[in-house]
């Protein structure tokens, strides 16, 4: 009978908390959105599944060895940990707090104490440490994105870089939004949190995760989920803003065909970009360095095997680990918070402002160029989200004028947006990191 009782007390049903049930439902919702609605399925399937696994009661998949020991070890274990951490109280909360605040040496002592008693890191925790905490996964994805990017349209019309710059205003406007919410006493964000939330407006998953992992690891789950959900919603968020800000005549503007770009120019571009980063903003070097490296592999033409791996096999492998690791951050105590609602709200505002600024900038450039050469619809593509945002520009262009193919023209601002948000990320890391 005792054995049966033990089994019951170790079961998920006995131990589950309402928060965990709710988070598992959120994981299921993400899976539904990915599978039925086709919302960024490559990321939301691993994220949703990781979220469900992270919330399995008692399994502790998303917890470190010490957290597992605190949770499962009983009074004796807590006492040992308290001694290792040099605190007198052996209450679980006090130990947890001391563990998170400990310096490296004490931290390590606590980890050894937990390991000695047979507690180990959860699987998802290990994935997170290797993939995200180290910064490796977002950077490898950026390399793959670089290897998939064709800078031809941008090189043919370098002025479109200004559109990519203008659309980054969404990022910084959102920082102000987050800071205002805090000043008004509605939410509680630090300047680091605000910066990490703003980067959602960059509409660039790996950049958002990279910045969040450095500036606000606690908010990483919510930020990543918001970033990828809104990227999937680009075809719904952008068109109303684009229509509201442009006239029918402007949407009909047909653009001249882009000039031919030589191979040498395409090879030189990533090198020029890298030199500029090295000279001006070393903090953006990890992101843009990997991006340029991936692009050089693509364009130089002598390492096709490496380029192929970077843009197919490797990016797929990394995506699996990245998704599961992000999912591991969907734990009830971190996600079920007013802050998450704030992040979701601010994220969509960031997207909207970015889109609007891109379109307005394109209108200004069109006026300056004589009024009939730049279709303002391509401005919205300045919020990265490659290639979805460019497709939206193309679609709206076709609606206004069935002979108007804007796709290649919109790819210029689109890839400029990737560079722009990486630069913005570098500035944020430099100023508040």
């Amino acid at each position, binding site marked *: 009978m005792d054995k049966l009782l033990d089994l019951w007390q170790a079961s998920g049903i006995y131990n589950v908390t309402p928060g965990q049930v709710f988070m598992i439902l959120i994981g299921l919702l993400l899976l539904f959105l990915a599978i039925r609605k086709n919302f960024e399925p490559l990321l939301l399937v691993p994220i949703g599944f990781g979220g469900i696994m992270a919330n399995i009661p008692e399994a502790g998949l998303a917890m470190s060895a010490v957290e597992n020991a605190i949770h499962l070890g009983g009074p004796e274990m807590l006492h040992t940990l308290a001694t290792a951490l040099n605190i007198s109280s052996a209450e679980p909360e006090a130990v947890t707090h001391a563990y998170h605040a400990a310096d490296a040496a004490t931290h390590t002592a606590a980890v050894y104490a937990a390991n000695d008693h047979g507690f180990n890191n959860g699987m998802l925790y290990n994935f997170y440490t290797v993939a995200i905490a180290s910064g490796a996964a977002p950077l490898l994805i950026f390399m793959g994105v670089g290897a998939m990017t064709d800078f031809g349209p941008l090189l043919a019309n370098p002025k479109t870089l200004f559109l990519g710059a203008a659309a980054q205003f969404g990022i910084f406007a959102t920082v102000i939004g987050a800071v205002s919410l805090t000043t008004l006493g509605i939410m509680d964000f630090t300047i680091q949190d605000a910066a990490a939330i703003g980067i959602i407006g960059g509409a660039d998953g790996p950049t958002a995760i990279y910045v969040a992992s450095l500036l606000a690891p606690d908010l990483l789950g919510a930020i990543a989920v918001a970033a990828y959900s809104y990227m999937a919603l680009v075809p719904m968020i952008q068109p109303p803003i684009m229509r509201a800000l442009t006239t029918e005549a402007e949407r009909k503007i047909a653009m001249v065909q882009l000039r031919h770009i030589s191979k040498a120019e395409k090879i030189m571009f990533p090198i020029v970009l890298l030199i*500029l980063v090295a000279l001006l903003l070393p903090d953006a070097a990890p992101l843009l360095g990997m991006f340029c490296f991936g692009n050089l592999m693509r364009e130089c033409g002598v390492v096709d095997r490496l380029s192929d791996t970077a843009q197919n096999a490797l990016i797929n492998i990394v995506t699996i680990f990245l998704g599961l690791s992000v999912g591991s951050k969907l734990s009830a105590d971190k996600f079920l918070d007013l802050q998450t609602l704030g992040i979701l709200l601010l994220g969509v505002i960031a997207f909207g402002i970015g889109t609007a600024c891109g379109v307005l900038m394109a209108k200004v450039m069109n006026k300056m160029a004589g009024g009939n050469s730049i279709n303002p619809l391509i401005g919205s593509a300045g919020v990265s989200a490659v290639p979805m945002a460019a497709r939206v520009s193309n679609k709206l262009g076709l609606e206004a004028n069935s002979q108007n193919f804007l796709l290649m023209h919109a790819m210029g601002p689109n890839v400029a947006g990737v560079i722009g948000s990486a630069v913005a990320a570098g500035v944020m890391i430099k100023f508040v990191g």
Partner: protein
Amino acid sequence: MDNLMSEGLSLMVFGMGFVFVFLTLLVFATGFMSKLVTKFAPEAKPQPAKPKPAVAAAASTGNDELVAVMTAAVHQFRKH
């Protein structure tokens, strides 16, 4: 609190300013690079199929000429 707001504002001004400065420089650097490339390493414009036989033909006529000259030279040499 005010401190946080001013931090946010300065982040916006500097951040946005820097993004624009960086991308403006990139526009110039790219334009300059494109000019250099088109000047010093102009891509041999689309030349599939057609120019190749022409080059080959030129080469072969060159050879014929050379052979003729050499034969003449050898003849001259043997006459003496």
